[in-house]
């Protein structure tokens, strides 16, 4: 106990080392997280949202695509319920990670499970799933997992804060809004494989465009749901039903 007390923050050197290993595993993805945070922060400004609320969103929601969707909903004057519902549909994919991570976290204390759940991003989930076998000891594993999740979220929040601070000086002529389709194309297209996913993308796009007369950005919600429903009716011929969620995890997909 005394030795633990001499360690920084009461965390033993061994545990720092394990967390450091986790950080190294997710480090290549962190520039993308910072960049995406920066883009979100800039959009917060464009939408006229205050800095406190903007930073609160980064820290509390920790899911960039849904945060940007909320901002877009607000800009179209959507009712609050529709803005929240759109965000939750986009974030439904976390249910898949959560179920996949359950056996990885099974031996952790409950407070660790509850804390790590908040830090689950697309990228951190993949890191934890890919490295789980190298960390059979549950204590060491949980420090690895927190090292591979928390710094990524911190970078996301710092990027957001920087974007909020810098937003007012970004000239309108730069058309910063292009970051939204650019970011999501970069996250979606590289990992796009298989008939169900391609169908989901095609149906979603067509429905969004065909229903663009709908108020409050409801066409986005309609497109996403139609894509999921029709895509899941298409038989999947790929022989490896692993943890592939149709999202690129190699770089730059800050969430």
């Amino acid at each position, binding site marked *: 106990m005394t030795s633990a007390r001499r360690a920084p923050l009461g965390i033993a050197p061994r545990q720092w080392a394990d967390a450091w290993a986790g950080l190294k595993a997710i480090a290549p993805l962190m520039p993308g997280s910072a960049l995406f945070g920066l883009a979100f922060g800039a959009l917060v400004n464009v939408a006229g949202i205050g800095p406190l609320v903007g930073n609160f969103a980064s820290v509390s929601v920790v899911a960039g695509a849904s945060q940007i969707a909320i901002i877009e909903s607000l800009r179209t004057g959507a009712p609050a319920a529709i803005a929240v519902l759109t*965000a939750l549909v986009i974030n439904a994919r976390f249910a898949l990670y959560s179920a996949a991570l359950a056996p990885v976290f099974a031996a952790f204390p409950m407070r660790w499970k509850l804390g790590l759940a908040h830090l689950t991003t697309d990228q951190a989930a993949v890191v934890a799933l890919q490295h789980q076998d190298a960390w059979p000891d549950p204590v060491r594993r949980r420090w690895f997992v927190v090292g591979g999740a928390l710094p990524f979220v911190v970078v996301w929040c710092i990027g957001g804060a920087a974007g909020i601070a810098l937003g007012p000086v970004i000239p309108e002529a730069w058309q910063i809004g292009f970051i*939204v389709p650019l970011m*999501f194309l970069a996250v979606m297209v590289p990992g796009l494989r298989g008939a169900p996913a391609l169908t989901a993308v095609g149906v*979603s796009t067509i429905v969004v465009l065909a229903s663009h007369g709908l108020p409050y950005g409801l*066409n986005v919600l309609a497109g996403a749901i139609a894509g999921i429903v029709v895509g899941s009716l298409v038989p999947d011929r790929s022989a490896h039903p692993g943890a592939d969620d149709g999202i690129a995890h190699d770089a730059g997909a800050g969430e």
Partner: protein
Amino acid sequence: MRTFLIFLAAAIGTYAIRVSGIVLFGGPRRLPERVERSLRLVGPAALAAIVANSLLLDGGTWRAFGAWHLAALVTIGVALWKRSSGWTMAAGAVAFAALLLAGA
């Protein structure tokens, strides 16, 4: 205040989604195959919806053809070629900046 409450509700709902499987599937239980298949399509479907809405539409009306469309084509091309998010972001940003400078 309204915006704060919207983000708060989204945060609570998102946390509930994130914690659901970890708590419910702590044992040997697995997600039903059909549910898992549908959840796997949430990413592509939702992201495609956001891309279509922000790229091809502008506040509910069609976006005039120009730099956005051309830069997006470059982005998609590089994404399919390199299969890397980093390369895709970089190429799309450079293409868009070049098109803006060229006055497209």
